[in-house]
Structures are given as C-alpha cells and as structure tokens.
C-alpha cells in the first residue's frame, strides 16, 4: 500500500468507523431490551425488573458515551479528509446528516439524561416514556445514516450538475433518494444486526453470573428476554440477508461477484462457495467446497441461469476480491452459527435445563464476540465491495479525497487516533468489567412493594442516586461484598 493521502485517509476512516461501530449497534440493541425490561416492570411492578433496568441503564450509559465521543469524529471526517466527496454529495448526503441531527440526536441525547439521571426526578411513566424515546432516537439515527450510505451504493433521485471538479449530484426527488433501491433492505439488516448484538451482549453477562452463581434470578430473566430477541432477530437476519444479496446482485453485480469469488460468468448455473481461498490471478477459488447452481438459484430462483461474474466488469472497476470474499463469508458463517446457537438454547430453555448446561453458558459468555465481528464484517463487505467507487458509478474513491491535504497530516492524525482509541478501548473494557463485577443492586432482599415496609425500602432505593448517575462511583464496601 502506498502511503499517499488517499490510502491514509481510507485507513483512518476504516479505523475510526470500525471503532465507532462497536458502540451504536450495541446501544440500539440494548435500548430495545431496556424498553422491554422497564415495560415489564411497569406492568408487573416486580422490583426485580426495576433493578434490571437500572443495571442495564448503567451499562448502556457507558456505551452511549463512547458512541457519542467517537461519532462526532465521523461527521468531521467527511469534511477534513473527503472534501471533494463532500462537495459532490453535499446536496444529497448533507440533508440526511442534518435530518439525523435534528430528528435523532436531539431526541436521544435529551431523553438519555432522563433515562440515566432522572430516576428520582420524574414519575415512573415519564421515565419509561424517556426510555422509549432514547431507543427510538437511536433507531432514527441509524435510519438517516443508513439512507445516506445506501445512496452511495445505489444512487437515486438525483441528477448531475456541472463538469469536472465542479460536478456534483443534486436532489431531484427527495423520497426517491430516501427510498433508493438498497436503503430499506440495508436498514432492516443493520437494525437486526444491532438487536442481535445487544441481546448477545446481555446474554454474555447473564451467562457469566449464572456460571458464577450470582444474581441468579436477575441473570435468568435477563437471559430469557435477550434470548427471545436474539432468536427472532437472528432468523430474521437470515431472511433479510437473502433479500439484500438479491438486491446486490441486481444493483451492484461487481460487489456480489467479489463476495462470492465468482470470476468467470460461464454459461450454466453458478455454484456457491461455502468457504475457500480466492485466487485472483488464477481467477478461481482454491480449497473450497461449492454447491453447484446454488448461487444462481438464490439470485435468480433458477439453478441454471449464470450469475454475472467479475469478467463482465471492466478491469478498473473490480472491487478487491479477497477482502470482500472473506468479510462476507465470515459474516454469513457467524450469522448461521448464531441461529444454531439460539435455537439450541431455546430448545433447552423450553426443556427447562438451559441454565444447568454450563458448557452452553460458557459458550454464551464468549458468543458476543460473534455479533461484534459480524456487524463489522458486514460493513467491511458492503464498503470494500463498492470499491473503487465512493459513490457507485459516479465518483471514484481516489477522487473524493481533500486536495489540500498532505500525507504527513493524515499520518499524524492516524497515529493519534490509534493511541487514543487504544487507550479508550482499554478503559472501556476496564470500566465495563468493574460494572459487571459490581453487578445489579439485589432486589431480592426487599419485600413486596405493596406493603408499607416495601414502600419505604423502595423509597430508600429511589433516594439512592448511585444507580442513576453517569458519573457515579460505586461504593467500595458493597464491592468487597460482591467479590466474595
């Protein structure tokens, strides 16, 4: 790789977006769980669900702060590193980004304050409303940014104005831009990926408590809620992924060919490689297992019609095959694994033996790495598969970079981002770990809230702001107790 402004800017964007994307799907997914937990609390008035909501809110807040801190970088980078791109797409992309700010960010950041700090300041209903609004806000923000990205993949509702360096895309039809061919498919898949991640994250921590025999009731109920979400979302992601792949075949054949390592179109049905090692020079996939005709059947519904291969794409417009192939296959493999894992867990849950199966609980502690990786790999596949275009068929990535930039500046900022993000990552892991070790406030010791004593105890808990401050420290004495 040459260390020119384009490569360095791509590297920096990849680094910052991949780090950022650890957090938004996590908060979107956890947001849904918070709504379910607090809704259950309001309905049943079982204080267990209250302590559950409070515990997950604390975890949520840490991740949200990381998402905000790393997210603002992304908005700046379009301008700092990709000025020519920004000029080209500003008319289209800028509107989506501004809509995101106005409709989504204000909503989530405002009500997040009530969610995290407002326990003793507002009524339970108002608090629940705030939780719903935060969750809705985080979903809204994904809507707008995914629309903007999808427009880059499948531009629609625009026309080109000007020539050469002055050329840019202008909106002709807003709704056509919003509902461009890939936006809704992509949005569905992105949200499902987020729900899966949030649910597996919760199950990982719950499984850890179950293995350590701590907070048993809390852990089991959390696990059950999250397992329900994870199972539904994993199955739905398979269906949505199939729709999306068909869309890619239709709108970005070069990308699908790269995903599948499909070099030569041929005349008969195209096989689907379950795995393999793509050999670009030799135009074949080595050491792979292929199912004949399956790709044709998935794309066309007919196992005999060939799928467009890379040979039909002009030389200079072919995406890098290896990165697309591996990232796509890893995502699919993880997705299938998660489906099997959740179905197995559902079966044992139904049999009532899930929480005694320690090997399965151990698997769930680490299984959260799967959705983290799958979310990342899915985006790597989507973005690398679009190359060499930054806006598909309209603007090359190499033409999108800021012309006033010099490589030394970008190198400086990459190194600084690298150091800072490494530090943040370590602190994030550390802080999450200490919150997990600390665990939820035990609700079991408190009697029913309908009795006078229960009300008093409940009021005392409400007056305890430990669970309600973003910046609150835990009490070291309870920490010691927990660790024993």
């Amino acid at each position, binding site marked *: 790789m040459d260390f020119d402004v384009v490569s360095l800017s791509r590297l920096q964007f990849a680094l910052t977006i991949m780090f950022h994307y650890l957090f938004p799907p996590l908060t979107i997914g956890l947001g849904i769980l918070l709504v379910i937990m607090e809704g259950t609390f309001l309905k049943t008035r079982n204080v267990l669900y209250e302590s559950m909501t409070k515990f997950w809110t604390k975890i949520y807040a840490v991740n949200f702060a990381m998402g905000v801190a790393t997210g603002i970088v992304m908005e700046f980078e379009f301008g700092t590193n990709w000025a020519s791109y920004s000029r080209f797409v500003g008319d289209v992309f800028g509107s989506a980004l501004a809509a995101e700010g106005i409709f989504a960010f204000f909503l989530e950041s405002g009500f997040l304050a009530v969610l995290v700090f407002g326990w003793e300041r507002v009524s339970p209903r108002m608090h629940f409303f705030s939780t719903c609004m935060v969750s809705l806000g985080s979903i809204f923000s994904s809507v707008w940014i995914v629309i903007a990205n999808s427009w880059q993949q499948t531009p629609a509702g625009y026309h080109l104005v000007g020539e050469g360096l002055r050329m840019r895309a202008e909106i002709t039809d807003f709704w056509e831009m919003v509902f461009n061919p890939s936006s809704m498919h992509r949005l569905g898949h992105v949200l499902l990926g987020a729900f899966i991640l949030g649910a597996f994250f919760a199950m990982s921590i719950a499984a850890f408590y179950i293995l350590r025999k701590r907070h048993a009731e809390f852990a089991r109920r959390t696990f059950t809620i999250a397992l329900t979400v994870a199972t539904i979302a994993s199955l739905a992601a398979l269906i949505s992924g199939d729709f999306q792949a068909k869309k890619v075949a239709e709108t970005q054949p070069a990308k699908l060919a790269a995903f599948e390592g499909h070099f030569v179109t041929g005349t008969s049905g195209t096989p689907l490689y379950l795995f393999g090692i793509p050999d670009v020079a030799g135009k074949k996939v080595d050491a792979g297992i292929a199912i004949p005709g399956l790709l044709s059947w998935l794309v066309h519904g007919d196992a005999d019609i060939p799928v467009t291969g890379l040979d039909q794409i002009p030389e200079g417009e072919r995406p890098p095959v290896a990165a697309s192939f591996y990232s796509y296959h890893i995502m699919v493999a993880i997705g299938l694994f998660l489906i099997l894992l959740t179905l197995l867990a559902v079966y044992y849950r139904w049999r009532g033996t899930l929480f005694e199966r320690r090997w399965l609980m151990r698997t769930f502690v680490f299984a959260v790495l799967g959705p983290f990786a799958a979310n990342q790999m899915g985006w790597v596949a989507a973005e690398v598969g679009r190359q060499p275009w930054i806006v598909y068929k309209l603007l090359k990535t190499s033409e999108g970079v800021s012309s006033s930039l010099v490589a030394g500046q970008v190198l400086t900022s990459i190194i600084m981002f690298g150091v800072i993000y490494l530090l943040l990552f370590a602190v994030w892991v550390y802080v999450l770990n200490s919150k997990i070790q600390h665990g939820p406030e035990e609700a079991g010791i408190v009697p029913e809230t309908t009795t006078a004593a229960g009300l008093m105890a409940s009021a005392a808990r409400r007056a305890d702001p430990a669970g309600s401050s973003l910046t*609150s420290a835990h009490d070291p004495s309870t920490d010691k107790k927990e660790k024993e």
Partner: protein
Amino acid sequence: MDLHIFWFILLGILLAGYAILDGFDLGVGILHLAAKKDEERRIFMNSIGPLWDGNEVWLVTFGGALFAAFPDAYAAAFSGFYLPFMFLLFALIFRAVSMEFRSKQEWRWWRRLWDVSFSAASLLATFLFGVAVGNSIQGLPINADKEVVATLFDLLQPYPLLIGVFAVAAFAMHGSIYLYLKTEGELQQRIHRWMWKTFGVFVAVYMFTTIVTLVQLPYVTRHFAEMPFAWVVVLLNVLAVANIPRAIFKGKPFGAFISSSCTIAALTFLFGIALFPNLITSSTNPEWSLTIYNAASSEKTLALMQIIAFCGMPFVLTYTVIIYWVFKGKVELGKFSY
C-alpha cells in the same frame, strides 16, 4: 425569504445555541481544577452531567446543516483546518469520556488523570473554537478552487489567537455563573468570588478585542449603514454585559446567567453580520470568497431542508425545555454519588 439567507440565519441560531449551551459546560470544565476537593469536583461534573451531551448535539447539527446547506464551505473549512479540527476532536473525545470514567474508581491518580484531561480538553476545545471564529473574521487564503491553502502556522496568527483567548474568558465567566446557580453553601460563596474575577477578565479581554477588531479589521462594520438594527444589537450587547455585574451584585444570579447568554448570542449575531454574505472570506482575492450563494446546495435542497428544519426545530426546543426543567435546581450528591 431568500433561502440562502434563511440558512445563514439558521446556522447562526444553531451556532448561538451551541455557544450558549455548550458554553457553560465548557466553562465548568475550564474552571474544574480550581475546585480542590473531590466532592466539589463531583458537584461540578454532576452539574453538567445530564446536559452536556444534548448541548454538544447543537454542534453536531450545526456541522450537519453546514454540510447540507453550504457543502463547499463545509469542505473548505474542515479540510483547511485539518490539524486544528483533529485536535478539537481529540479534545471533545476526552471531555466526553473523562466525565464518564472519572468516578468509576477511587484511586487518586485515576481521578486526577481524568480531572486534568477533562479540564484541559474543555480549555483546548474552547480555545480552538475561538481560533476558528477568529480566522473566519480575518479571512483565509482561499484559492480559485474553493480550497483553503494554509499551513498550521497560517491559522495561528495573533488575531485568531486573541479570539481564542476571548472565547476562553467568555465561557469561563458563563460557566462560573452557571455553577453559582447549581451550588450552595461555602462552595457557592467561593464561586461568587470567581464570578467577579472571571467577569473582570472577560471585560478586559472584551474591550481589548473590540478595539483590535475595529482598528485592524474595520470592514466588520461595513453593513452597519444599511442594517440599522445592528446598532441595536451592539447596544443590547453592551447592556447585557453591564447587567451581569448588576445582577450578581443584586443577588440575582439567574439574571446574570441570562445576561451572559444574551451577550454570547449578540456576539454570535455580530460575527454573522461581519461575515455576511460570506461564509469564509478569501484573503487572497475577494472574488474567491465562499458566499452563501456560490457555496450553497441547490435551491431545491435548501427548500427541502427548510421543511425539515421547520418540522424538527419545535421538537428540539421542546426537548431542551423539558430536560432543563427536569434537571433544574441545585446539584445533589447523595451518599452513594461519586
């Protein structure tokens, strides 16, 4: 109304909203290390804890709106200010995580580390905002391709640096008044003295900056002849500044806070008047300046975005009011707060 002017005004409102709201929490950050005791620092951070994130969204939305309405100005400014904006980003990142992480451990060095990082990041962010504004007033070397051709050294000239210092002074004062509102007892008494000190510094820097601006950059008032209401804003600005000590003296800190907010709003307005109709003035050739016409998106997009803004802004204002209402009153630290 001309859509271009509408968007210029809306960006001004977003910028003023950001400067007023994030201004006080940046100010709290700047003053953070002046609080010596751990508990006082906890009070400081908790005073802005629920609010800073929403405040920062004003900046994010300002950036998004600039991108959408005036992509050429967004592209030129952000790529031209590459390194300063990277440092601004690092500052904003550290501010956010310092608040989140500080109180998660009892260790002295841990808290010390995040205290210093929180305060330094607030100071740096404020200073860099000021430098950016100073450069906009002074003009930047923009070439015929709408690109800023400047080294880091070009961006750090005396006038922008002065505006950087001015921003720090203004936000420190604004933050001290906010802290006075949120605290009680002995701490509040001490902050009372800080209000006077920061006000004194602010007035001195304010007068010096005004003189330098009028002498060195007389074109900032070129629109005053055709816009008589600009004089009214100048007058209101002076009255607002004068009302700060009056309100503090009379024991009406909320009045002082409103006055300092008005001061910031008026200054943002005057900044807008000084620029208009340019977004970034070219110091190389006035013909190459990026204006609200030659740097804009299409009329269709501006009109569309106007609808989005009209739909969205009432919600934004409602949330802001609700959140500030919910979190009104003094900061309370319970037994278990950090």
